């Protein structure tokens, strides 16, 4: 299914205007006390969730803004927030 993404500046646009920026992994780890292992975790490791994940996008062919959204990787649809698990 075609993906649409809501840019905070430009509104809902075709997904191909955007560049995927990776899973949201929280803030960049501090330089102090950084080990190769913890940097590797931040740089490379993914949860590969089949379901809703929070992720970064850049409106590459648009305003250039970086922002995070929630998206369901099983349906390719943008959703309002994290999956509610009962």
């Amino acid at each position, binding site marked *: *299914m*075609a*993906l649409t993404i809501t840019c905070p500046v430009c509104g809902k646009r075709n*997904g*191909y205007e955007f*560049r*995927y920026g990776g899973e949201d992994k929280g803030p960049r780890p501090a330089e102090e006390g950084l080990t*190769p*292992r913890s940097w*590797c*975790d931040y740089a*490379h*490791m*993914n*949860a*590969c*969730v*089949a379901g809703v994940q929070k992720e970064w996008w850049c409106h590459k062919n648009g305003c250039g803004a970086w922002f995070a959204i929630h998206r369901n*990787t*099983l*349906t*390719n649809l943008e959703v309002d927030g994290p999956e509610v698990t009962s």
Partner: protein
Amino acid sequence: MLRGFKPLWGKKPGLRSSYDAVIIGGGLHSLATAYYLAKEQGMRDVAVLEKRFIGFGGAGRNTAIVRANQRTQENVPLYKEALDLWPVLTRELDYNLMFNNCGNLNLMHSEAAMNAARMNVCTAQFHGIESHLLDARQVKEIEPTINISPDITYPVHGAMFHPPGGVVRHDAVVWGLAKGAARHGVHIHQQTEATAIQSDGARITGVDTSRGRIRTPRVLVSAGGYSAGIINKMLGLKLPISVLTIQAMVTQPLKPVLNHVVSSGMYHAYANQTLKGEIATGAHMDPWPNYTTLTTAHYIKHQAEALSEFLPFLRGVKFMRHWAGLADMTPDMAPIIDGNDPLEGFYMNCGWGYFGFKSCTATGRHMAAFMAKGECPERLKPFGLRRYEKHRLMGETAALVTYTPDN
């Protein structure tokens, strides 16, 4: 007509309460590992757990191309072994895998690309694999349908020609390996979902399934695009993998017209003619992770535009069928094969991206030795997970078609 019909892999086996080894996933890497565990390592109690049916995933969705002209010295020998195994397995399994070694023709569209191809060719030749460069005129001689005129978007400068590659019927490999594995006593459990992996904190103790608990000292996760999600969910181990949907399609059948597997990195498309006459073509990946396995109008348009430029005989030919599968991409375009880390008896074989089909047999064979002996064979050592924290990423992204998880 179907009287007396039974699957090649025998009657549905009952689920035992314990096995020597359990393999999660019923695709080609799993079936090959199970086959070689039983046949060459003498392990008789092996279970393959498949949530849906064998060959449902990447095994039945790839475009069946095989070749051994990758970039790095760690990868190339593994693919060569796999390429050499097709005729051997056809005999061994007593099942026609329909290996058609028509050769791969990889088009280059600039002098810089020709230089990159020259390095690839040198690597192949160093490892004793036939591969050489052709100029545009030579390309036209062996593949007359290719458009070498200068007035297309990316004119053809030449090609990397790899004669021993070609196409193998992927479903036949699934059925042949399943037949062979079952004959050696492997239990293939379809419609059986693994739900949890059990450990005592140091070693693997069992696997929970939708049909009950199994005790086992060894478990291999080899479930193609689903592996990374499974490993994270069941063991909390994150992998450097992005799972992308990759799309493919076939045209209506035509009389024999295309002699080779023709591919182009610039046009980002490859095409070959199947034995049924269809032109099977693909390459597009969704540029964001998803598990939809759906095709998109965006890609169909791209493919039509690309093919009608470098293979102009396809103008006006209709696409008949399209489909998609999953590719689990790593940052260095090389797989993750590891074992006994962080748990004794836990093995994984994933991150193949879109190279899983062409590598399945040789990898399964080495993986079987790994699981039976507990020691990683030399051939698989470069693919350990810890290469990422050591920043020892492989150079496969320098191969000619550069498509990484970050696009």
